[in-house]
């Protein structure tokens, strides 16, 4: 008889273990994105394994930088296929965790009864295979070099989530714990290895902070909230990587096979972890093997199986929809054999969505909202090529940047921050340098090394040290030696270029009334009240690294700022014009207008 017991594999425990291991591997990879970036693997390995990276680069005509990796990634797509979604995807694991929370709420009686069988509910709302259609739109957009795809890639999302949400959040309490321990133990030898490991990998010697993360938090909340509506909604209807996996599922030797003597008892439907017993929806939770007592479900190739009907030949039962309301049984049968199966991908829908992508392109452009970039909007080193067309380089950067956030994670000083819409909607969450938070270290080129697409070019250190990010401008209404009788020189001290881009000259403070210092408490022996050491910038030497802005002792907005172009009207009267070093103090009180 066919009622023999199945092998006692606890698929659920096994799957969860693999998921945990996969997430841990990702966390190890993520935590190694710190200086000095000495890893046994490529620092951008994760995205070299993401087939979407290569597909996007190919379609957008930017070329695949590593053909070998492209082949590996595409090969994996066929080998791992849908198994990735259920067992390896970090976003999938996160969604399962949310599901777990939802289950817990249910146990506590906070969320009422179990909802009606999901397939019946969602069937009428969204077209099956929606993710494939959406992928068609996104790929058309990619061919037109519109990077919308990258808002939806689960790998990109995971990396960004770890970088700008999870690590800063986890680090708060961890840091408090560490500090309380460290204050007591820092002289103990046994404490040092733990302390150094924590500092090196977790905080990278500073607690990571990111500005403007609210929008990303809302995005995350929406994405995770979908899980409360339906299990793995994201994975089945939106995820572009899931869509690729759905497509390769058809060619995969291991797949869910139901023997033709299935009685449609729906037991498998009840246990299905992801609520997706239709072909291509299966995420390999394997829990239905156990549930099917007669053992009619197998994931191994061979043997007879319930075959989907060929397109255009609907089953007799579903041919008369008006006669009877769809029962769960009939829906199940239809999903195994009818139009909801992946074979049911509608060519017409595919074309429609592809066309929608083409239509969306000009619209996205129209509503992109990209105007001229703010003057203090600084891109990572090498993005704007020396002597190149800045607008063209910015365009190229937007097309190439996949917004994975690896550069922000790796940035030595935490200065690389996610942009909002300063560079347009398509520039959302691309990296920008906010010098007041962290400068671009002269002897560091890590961001280029971790960038998987070459949006930030890989530059050798000497080459990187000549990249110009912007130019420093001095606000003489704030700069200390201009408005007080005191010297400062902090910016000049820190200026990293061999021939200092910031130079000092001795002059009377233009905004300090002559003779006012006589009666002050300044020690006349050490500070000369008549003149002060005042900084000026040689724009031919300045590379705009921003360390001057970072260290400027003036409170609030620094008195020296790195800008990409001469400041606009708000600053004209207070910033010193480029390159001019006013010789006469008298003239300085009347800045250029």
């Amino acid at each position, binding site marked *: 008889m066919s009622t023999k017991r199945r092998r006692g594999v606890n698929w659920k425990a096994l799957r969860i273990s693999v998921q945990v291991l996969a997430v841990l591997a990702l966390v190890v990879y993520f935590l190694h994105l710190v200086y000095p970036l000495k890893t046994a693997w490529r620092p951008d390995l994760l995205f070299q394994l993401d087939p979407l990276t290569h597909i996007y680069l190919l379609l957008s005509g930017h070329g695949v930088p590593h053909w070998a990796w492209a082949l590996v990634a595409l090969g994996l797509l066929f080998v791992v296929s849908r198994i990735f979604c259920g067992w390896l995807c970090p976003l999938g694991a996160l969604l399962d965790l949310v599901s777990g929370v939802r289950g817990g709420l249910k146990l506590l009686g906070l969320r009422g009864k179990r909802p009606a069988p999901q397939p019946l509910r969602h069937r009428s709302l969204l077209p099956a295979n929606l993710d494939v259609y959406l992928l068609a739109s996104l790929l058309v957009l990619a061919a037109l070099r519109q990077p919308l795809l990258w808002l939806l890639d689960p790998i990109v999302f995971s990396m960004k989530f770890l970088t700008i949400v999870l690590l800063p959040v986890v680090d708060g309490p961890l840091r408090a714990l560490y500090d309380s321990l460290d204050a007591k133990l820092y002289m103990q030898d046994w404490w040092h290895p733990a302390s150094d490991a924590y500092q090196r990998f977790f905080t990278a010697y500073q607690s990571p902070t990111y500005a403007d993360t609210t929008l990303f938090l809302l995005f995350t909340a929406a994405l995770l909230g979908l899980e409360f509506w339906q299990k793995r909604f994201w994975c089945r209807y939106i995820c572009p990587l899931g869509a690729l996996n759905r497509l390769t599922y058809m060619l995969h030797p291991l797949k869910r096979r139901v023997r033709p003597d299935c009685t449609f008892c729906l037991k498998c439907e009840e246990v299905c972890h992801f609520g997706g017993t239709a072909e291509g929806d299966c995420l390999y939770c394997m829990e239905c093997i156990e549930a099917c007592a007669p053992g009619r479900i197998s994931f191994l190739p061979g043997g007879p199986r319930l075959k989907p009907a060929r397109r255009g030949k609907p089953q007799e039962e579903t041919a008369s929809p008006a006669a009877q309301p769809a029962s769960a049984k009939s829906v199940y049968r239809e999903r195994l054999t009818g139009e909801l199966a992946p074979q049911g991908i509608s060519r017409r829908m595919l074309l429609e969505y592809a066309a929608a992508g083409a239509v969306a392109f000009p619209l996205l452009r129209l509503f992109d909202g990209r105007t001229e970039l703010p003057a203090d909007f600084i891109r990572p080193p090498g993005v704007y090529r020396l002597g190149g067309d800045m607008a063209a380089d910015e365009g190229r950067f937007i097309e190439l940047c996949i917004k994975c956030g690896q550069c922000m994670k790796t940035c030595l000083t935490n200065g690389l921050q996610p942009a909002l819409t300063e560079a347009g909607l398509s520039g959302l969450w691309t990296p920008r340098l906010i010098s007041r938070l962290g400068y671009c270290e002269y*002897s560091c080129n890590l961001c280029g090394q971790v960038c998987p697409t070459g949006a930030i070019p890989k530059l050798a250190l000497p080459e990187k040290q000549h990249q110009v990010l912007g130019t420093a401008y001095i606000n003489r209404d704030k700069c200390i030696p201009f408005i007080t009788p005191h010297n*400062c020189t902090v910016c000049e001290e820190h200026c990293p270029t061999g021939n200092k881009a910031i130079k000092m000259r001795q002059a009377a403070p233009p905004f300090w009334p002559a003779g006012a210092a006589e009666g002050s408490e300044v020690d006349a022996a050490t500070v000369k009240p008549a003149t002060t050491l005042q900084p000026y910038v040689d724009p031919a030497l300045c590379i705009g690294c921003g360390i001057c802005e970072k*260290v400027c002792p003036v409170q609030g907005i620094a008195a020296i700022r790195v800008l990409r172009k001469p400041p606009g009207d708000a600053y004209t009267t207070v910033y010193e014009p480029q390159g001019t070093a006013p010789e006469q103090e008298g003239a300085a009180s009347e800045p250029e207008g």
Partner: protein
Amino acid sequence: MDDRRGFLRRLLLALGGAGLAGMAERMPGVGRLAGLRGTAEAAQNDLTWVQGADPYKNTVKALAELGGIGRFVRSGQRVAILPNIGWARKPEQAGCTHPRVVRALIDECEKAGAKSVTLFCNPCNDARVCLDLSGIGAEVEQTKARFEFINPQGWVQRRAVQGCTHLKSTQVYRLVTDSDVLINAAIAKHHGLCELTMCCKNLMGAIKDRVQLHQYIHESIADLVLMIPSTLCVLDATRILLRNGPSSGDVGDNMLTNTVIAGLNPAQVDVLGTTLFNKKPQAIGYLKILAQRNYIVLDPTKLPHSRARA
């Protein structure tokens, strides 16, 4: 007319006073401070100038000239070394203390039986890059010593002491307070604001709000010298930076002088250090202030010190 009771009271007071003084002497901070105060009339072996091709040997020789490391570090003590690791510069750029000088200090301290040797510095560039480029990180790795990255919560309020004129208090790093021995291992460099940076200015690496002190730099440095007493001061002048200090970056800005100056009083070491640059100590604001406070002898020619070759 003395009675017995009064006599006993005076006797007890005297004994108590002697006991307190004895305890105070054993307290490391106070002991160091008292030692420093005494150096205004520096003895011959409180200051030394050693020249030689090898910075490591120079340092060892300088310590020998001062009476050996045993004079400063006793067995079982915790040593904190404050080198200048402030800049992401290579040794040939003369931005940081020479790694071999630092190594010599670590080795000597370990030889003296120090319980622990910890290096620290509040750097201007990122600490990791500074450690790597300066070569100090590699040297530290070969020893049992350890570099402590500044913990932003590790600052301790330290009040001004008698004689300070500008600072009321400042935040110093906990290793200054908690170590038995503080070794100030500076490099001699030009400095755009205070002319020269040597052992006195190096103390800026031990405090938190350094940048905010630049507006009264000379007064602040003079106060810091009083507030952060060092057990031993070593001035690395293997390469001295002549221009574009303190960070420079241009190899052409420095000069090979192959010298190590060591002493007990940081300001006195600096006075001797000014002669490397052919400058007058009077021209250095903070040295002038310290001389006004009768803390140092400002004339290098009148300064008793030993000279040796290694």
